[in-house]
């Protein structure tokens, strides 16, 4: 058995937990509110050739699950892949989330449908004519007003062939890629300054569709529920992000995903200029 990167390592301890009864709730079980399936982009494994696989979440109306940073509450899905020996696996590609406002809180997650995909590469030594089993154990949380944890064991038998064709799930992968954050455009210039209460992000670009929404990759950097005010400045945009109450130390970099009105999403690594002396002295 081989596992993905350490992040994806198979934690055997969870198998003990699997034997425990699922939490009962008046809202029923998690799989009454979300349908999970294991899908692949191609219909067969080809030795040494990359294949995209993914967990498709079909979320029932009113229910949501979470992004890699869930925001103020909730928890992202965790996928443990179990792949045959010699397979290599990559990290989950997280489509950009939507903001889920809950009164004084804000979460980041997905409604309706989301595909969490990862690339795998079978070894060169794979023999045609055989079949290979791919297994995923998914731990997830679905929430409406209330939350229900769920777990799902999914497996798929894939034939090994000389060449592969697209599977019927191919359009799901195409659609999901549209929502993956891309590297920042080369002609954008971005920086941030740290004030007592805010990070002020300065983005220099010729044309920027509005409005924009910033999703932090890390918890404890910005206050999720605070409005994100943006103002147009010559040659770009200024975005005001309120600092998290949990942020205790200066950060060198603010990382996150910016989503434009067009639906395009970009991954940002924003260098943060530290506050001027007067501000640091305001700490007792």
């Amino acid at each position: 058995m081989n596992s993905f990167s350490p992040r994806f390592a198979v934690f055997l301890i969870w198998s003990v937990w699997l034997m425990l009864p699922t939490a009962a709730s008046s809202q029923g079980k998690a799989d009454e509110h979300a349908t999970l399936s294991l899908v692949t982009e191609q219909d067969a494994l080809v030795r040494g050739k990359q294949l995209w696989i993914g967990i498709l979440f079909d979320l029932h109306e009113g229910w949501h699950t979470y992004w890699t940073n869930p925001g103020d509450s909730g928890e992202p899905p965790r996928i443990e892949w179990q792949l045959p020996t010699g397979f290599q696996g990559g990290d989950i590609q997280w489509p950009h989330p939507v903001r889920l406002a809950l009164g004084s809180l804000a979460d980041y997650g997905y409604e309706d449908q989301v595909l969490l995909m990862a690339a795998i590469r079978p070894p060169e030594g794979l023999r045609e004519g055989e079949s290979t089993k791919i297994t995923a154990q998914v731990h997830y949380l679905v929430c409406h007003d209330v939350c229900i944890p769920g777990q799902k064991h999914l497996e798929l038998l894939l034939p090994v062939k000389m060449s592969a064709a697209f599977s019927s799930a191919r359009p799901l992968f195409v659609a999901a890629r549209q929502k993956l954050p891309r590297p920042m455009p080369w002609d954008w210039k971005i920086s941030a300054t740290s004030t007592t209460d805010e990070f002020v992000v300065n983005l220099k670009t010729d044309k920027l569709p509005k409005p924009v929404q910033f999703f932090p990759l890390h918890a404890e950097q910005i206050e999720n529920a605070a409005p994100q005010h943006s103002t147009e400045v010559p040659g770009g945009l200024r975005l005001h992000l309120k600092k998290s109450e949990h942020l205790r130390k200066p950060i060198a970099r603010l990382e996150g995903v910016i989503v434009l009105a067009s639906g395009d999403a970009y991954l940002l690594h924003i260098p943060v200029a530290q506050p001027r002396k007067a501000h640091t002295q305001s700490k007792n």
Partner: protein
Amino acid sequence: MKHNQWWNLVAVFVLISSCHAVKVGDSAPDFQAMDSNGRAHKLSQYHGKFVVLEWHNNGCPYTQKHYESGNMQHLQKEWTSKGVVWLTVISSAPGEQGYVSAQDENDYMSKMKASPTAALLDPKGDVGKLYSAKTTPHMFVVNPAGVLIYDGAIDSKATTEQADISTAKNYVSQALEESMAGRPVSTPTSRPYGCSVKYAH
């Protein structure tokens, strides 16, 4: 710098700090709430003692993780036996998950063998909003001088799985142990994890 300029600066800093509801290192704001036995509790009456605030919702799977495993009851017992005041706070609004009557809460505590100093009923969410309590559980620790020394998660593993408790670092116990030993709290804040507090909409 002239004297009046200094006073201006001081005034600015007071204004800045008043923007934050609660902040580790600042005085924990006082509140008054009724417990499940009809007794009123004020935070200020516990001046001179450590106080733990535990946000609670018995229908939330994250709360259930810590109660069905016995972890929360163990912490309550351990720390109250060392003189710590443990206040469980329920900020669910009527009709929302986790809202309980006083009798419901007393029945729950006896069934679960929970032993906080008191369970405070906060159906209007006043105490919750004063502290910006976000999740259940969300934990706060106040030191004997009335200063907030911890604000955040109960421990380091943000899951609903009981098996994770034994390998997680418990931030509440850590804050109490370090502070009682006269050391600074090494993790004074963390992202609280759990269900959102079910305030009135």
